[in-house]
């Protein structure tokens, strides 16, 4: 098997496994790390993780396909996840989703040709006091309007991270 974790991540994985009385419990944590390292969970990554935990690759596949945060395909450098749930919707989320989609020239679920942005809509992010809100990778942005979206996208386009 050619694919390998970096030594640092491998160390972290070994530490995480020790937190649990049963090894398989570490699966979600390892997949989070794997996604950070490899960008998405390919079949090869599934096999690698399965080998580490002594489980069948199908067990990994079951989990990867169940949880929305794991991707089986590459996503853009900046994964924009706009909340469409109740408080955000009341405060104009739909309109913002259309706006971002138009600005980036992609539909929801698509990635820009330069692989910079992926646009997704998600369910409640638990930040309703800042509705409408979104997450870019793991960063939260709230109280959004078109002007704020312009600013955020411009910063990201120039790779200025907060």
């Amino acid at each position: 098997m050619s694919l390998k974790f970096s030594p640092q991540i491998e160390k972290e994985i070994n530490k995480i496994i020790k937190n649990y009385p049963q090894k398989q419990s570490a699966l979600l944590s390892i997949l989070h790390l794997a996604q950070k390292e490899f960008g998405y969970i390919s079949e090869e990554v599934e096999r690698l993780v399965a080998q580490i935990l002594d489980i069948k690759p199908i067990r990994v596949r079951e989990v990867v396909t169940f949880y929305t945060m794991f991707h089986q395909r590459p996503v853009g450098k900046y994964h924009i996840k706009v909340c469409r749930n109740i408080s955000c919707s009341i405060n104009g989320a739909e309109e913002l989703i259309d706006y971002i989609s138009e600005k980036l020239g992609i539909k929801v679920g698509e990635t820009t040709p330069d692989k910079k942005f992926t646009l997704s809509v998600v369910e409640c992010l638990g930040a309703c006091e800042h509705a409408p809100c979104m997450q870019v990778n793991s960063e939260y942005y709230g109280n959004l309007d078109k002007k704020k979206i312009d600013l955020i996208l411009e910063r990201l386009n120039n790779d200025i991270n907060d």
Partner: protein
Amino acid sequence: MTSMIEEKLLTRNLEVENLYKIEIYQKYDGYKALKKALLQMTPEQILEEVKKANLRGRGGAGFPAGLKWSFVPKDTHKPKYLCVNADEGEPGTFKDRFIMTNNPHLLIEGIIITCYCVGIHTAFIYIRGEYEHVAQRLETAIKEAYKKNYLGDNILKTNFSLNLYIHRGAGAYICGEETALLESLEGKRGHPRLKPPFPASVGLYKCPTVINNVETISNIPIIVLKGGEWFVKKGLPNDGGTRLFSVSGSVKNPGVYELPTGTNLKDIIFNYAGGMKEGRTLKAVIPGGLSAPILREDEIDIPMDCESLMKVNSMLGSSAIIVIDDRTPIIDVLRVIVNFYAHESCGQCTPCRNGTWWMKNIVHRICNGYGKISDIDNLLRIANNICGKTLCPMGDAASMAVRGVLEKFRQEIEDYIKKR
């Protein structure tokens, strides 16, 4: 002034800068309850106080915490576990994030006392995957607590030991359901288990397990410090203490408000949250997270406690108040509801998996202008066929939320269908 401060239990000292750091937390009586519990009280005495406090679960079901703990068998050779539910997926809810971000040690102190009381030596905080920054803050706080010997071996030189770990979810609403949470912690899909057996006897790794919400556990330190009788007086006789109300939607000042259990809903919206946004009028309120059936404007003059909301066929749930204004078409609310449950159904039980999907398709058809008046009864029929026919309460939640909108706003939906 003093009495105002006394009203706050969970959000006390919140104005203190850097309260999330252990040194600061300690300066404001942090870990004092832990010392009292471990050095001066027996587990039985603590359980007695929690029972007296009538502390009901803050996650949604409202089950009395003391009673839950007492179900854990005492004479078992198996290890016991505590799982803190920090999945916080109920739409409209953000109070647990508020506690964990601003006062993580309050939660940790509550966890240690709970584990001492129930005889647990391993605890997990199951936190939703999206809260990565919050998880990092908790990690740091846990490290601090280990350094002070509040966690680890022989805590405060007693023979009580506890290890605490964080487990991140990965984006699945269902994992907030306690048995799905356990499956997820075991590294599997979040498929709820059949109950009974209840987690108190057969839980994580088939061992006795206590599962409590973040806010519930965070109330433990003050109950230990001030006593159950004091605590119960801060709320209602059978529903003690305060609640963290997450208020969002069309209000001027959305946010977390700590108020006595039983505070009037209208008061929370118009006095505490600043009333409606400029130029909007109130149309409806969802009082306990998206799963709680919607209330019309003329129904919100009620106390916010489990029983009062049950009387109006809704529920207190996670105490998340979602305020809907006159400019929001009710069909939009319905669409959000059906989208959400169709997306989050775990797929295990047919009535929920297929029912939520059908409801979503019908509502989308209505939105696209192809609705028929008979669709409303059709939706009601499907909702009725989900309720009570699934392993976990998510099916009931989907059904109740949809039924609530259809029953309370039938005329508006009929008008919408006719107009399109």
